[in-house]
């Protein structure tokens, strides 16, 4: 559904996206992660033909966006952070206006998406009277109007309260389950990505530093919490023997590949270190992301 081939974007002399290649398959929820300024929004802009790539090729639904933007975006819906509408017009009128930029849309279809997002009864009120959550729902409605196959969500939960974030998460799952949509999700909420996405890509400084499935991320050994009276001495000893790769927050260790917690315990006890407890924590996307980011920072520093 989405294919980026060695895409590069420069704003003046500043390189914002560097040789980015990624592929999103039909039916998956793909997460795009990265810090502010990592190039996520620029990459999304290039997918939608709003930002022109300096080099490379962007293909959406099999069409080259630069050469045939109209065909590429025919079955695409998008939501951006902080949904903006014509506040002085009603929700209904906003949907009518936006629908004409794609294809003729019947009133029945508008009514259908309004019902789907749960705005029935408020569609004729001016948008300026809508809460943030209602605006997010209206944004979703406008994205669903053209019966999309692909939905691009650029930080859709931005500015929502916890209840709104939960509702948005459930809606995204419903969209995939009930409508079979392919979804590209750019988000800062790593917990959200963890629960929703099937695959992720992590951008840093405009470069892709990781691409893989969430299952793959979780299968990697995560942090191990080690409780010992001499944490610095014990971890120095383990590191010297190549059993761990890093320590975190003065209580966690990251095991080297091929080593288990049982082996660590035995080794420490044999060496005379008291082990009061050792627990394996399942790796979350957040753990993985933070580990990757700190690793990248260290690499850059060195």
């Amino acid at each position: 559904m989405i294919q980026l081939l060695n895409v590069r974007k420069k704003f003046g002399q500043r390189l914002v996206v560097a040789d980015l290649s990624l592929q999103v398959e039909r039916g998956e929820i793909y997460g795009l992660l990265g810090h502010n300024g990592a190039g996520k929004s620029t990459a999304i802009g290039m997918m939608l033909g709003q930002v022109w790539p300096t080099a490379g090729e962007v293909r959406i639904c099999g069409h080259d966006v630069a050469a045939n933007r109209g065909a590429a975006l025919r079955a695409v819906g998008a939501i951006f952070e902080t949904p903006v509408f014509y506040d002085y017009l009603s929700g209904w009128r906003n949907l009518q206006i936006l629908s004409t930029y794609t294809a003729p849309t019947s009133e029945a279809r508008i009514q259908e998406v309004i019902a789907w997002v749960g705005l029935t009864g408020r569609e004729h009120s001016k948008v300026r009277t809508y809460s943030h959550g209602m605006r997010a729902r209206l944004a979703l409605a406008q994205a669903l109007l053209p019966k999309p196959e692909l939905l691009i969500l650029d930080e859709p939960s931005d500015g929502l309260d916890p209840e709104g974030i939960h509702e948005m998460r459930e809606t995204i799952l419903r969209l995939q389950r009930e409508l079979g949509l392919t979804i590209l999700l750019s988000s800062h909420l790593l917990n959200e990505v963890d629960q929703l996405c099937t695959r992720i890509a992590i951008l840093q400084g405009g470069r892709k530093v990781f691409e893989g499935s969430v299952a793959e991320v979780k299968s990697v050994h995560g942090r191990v919490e080690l409780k010992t009276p001499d944490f610095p001495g014990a971890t120095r000893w383990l590191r010297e023997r190549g059993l761990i790769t890093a320590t975190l927050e003065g209580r966690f260790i990251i095991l080297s590949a091929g080593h288990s917690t049982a082996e660590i315990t035995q080794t420490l006890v044999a060496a005379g270190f008291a082990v009061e407890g050792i627990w394996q924590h399942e790796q979350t996307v957040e753990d993985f992301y933070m580990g990757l980011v700190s690793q990248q920072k260290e690499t850059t520093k060195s």
Partner: protein
Amino acid sequence: MLRAQLQNELWKLFGKRRTYIGFGAFVLAQSTMLLMFKYTRWESQFERLLAGNGYPASDYISALTVALVMLTPQILLLMPLYVTLVGGDMVAKETEDGTLRMILSRPISRVRLLWVKWMAGTFFSVVLVLALGGIALGFARILFPWKGMFVFGEPPHPVFSLFPPGEGLRLYLFSHLLMAMNAIAMMSVAAMFSCFNMKPAAATILALSYLFMSMVLEHIPFFEAYQNWFITHHFASWVLLFQSPTPWAQIIQSEIILLATSATAFVIGALAFQVRDIKS
């Protein structure tokens, strides 16, 4: 589809309160001018001018004469302000508000979008001019009788003409067509600037600066030989309509130049809009 897009563009335009600033300002300015005309020495000066040339003032101090007198300063000063305000908003305001990103996530081409917006701007310009003329004539008719029309203009476009009411009304209506062409050209220049990466106010100010600079240069004697190069010189063609005999060749030339200016502004704007990146 074009019709639906244009209709929606008009909803957006006429749904905004700021669109009506121009209409409100015209009503205010015209009612003030009308009262001044009626209750100051302005009217008696007109009577003297007519009587001095051998014409009975009572036959020509009429609704048509007063409407035209009220119209002139507003066409020169207020109209450019309001049409450039709408033209400057055209793309830049949607970029600033963030709605443009949402529109451009849809398969509509940027040139098509600009074309629809430009047509809506053209419609607004025509409506504004018609409202201006209609309000002026309507207000003037309240206090003045329906009689002949007297048109007086000073150099560089000297006019001293008298018309019977029917002929006067016909010319008055026709002059609005030419004023609308002026308004469209002004709006197009502002819309062109609006397509570049700038704030809506900057686009409006740039367009007004261009018009002001053109007007200043046009009136410098050194540039007399180059007057055709100044857009404001061609804005005066509606006044020429009242000259006797009517200089049709000059009027047609000016209108073609205004049309070409609007088209050029559209093309430059479309090119700038097409190549730029739209970011949040």
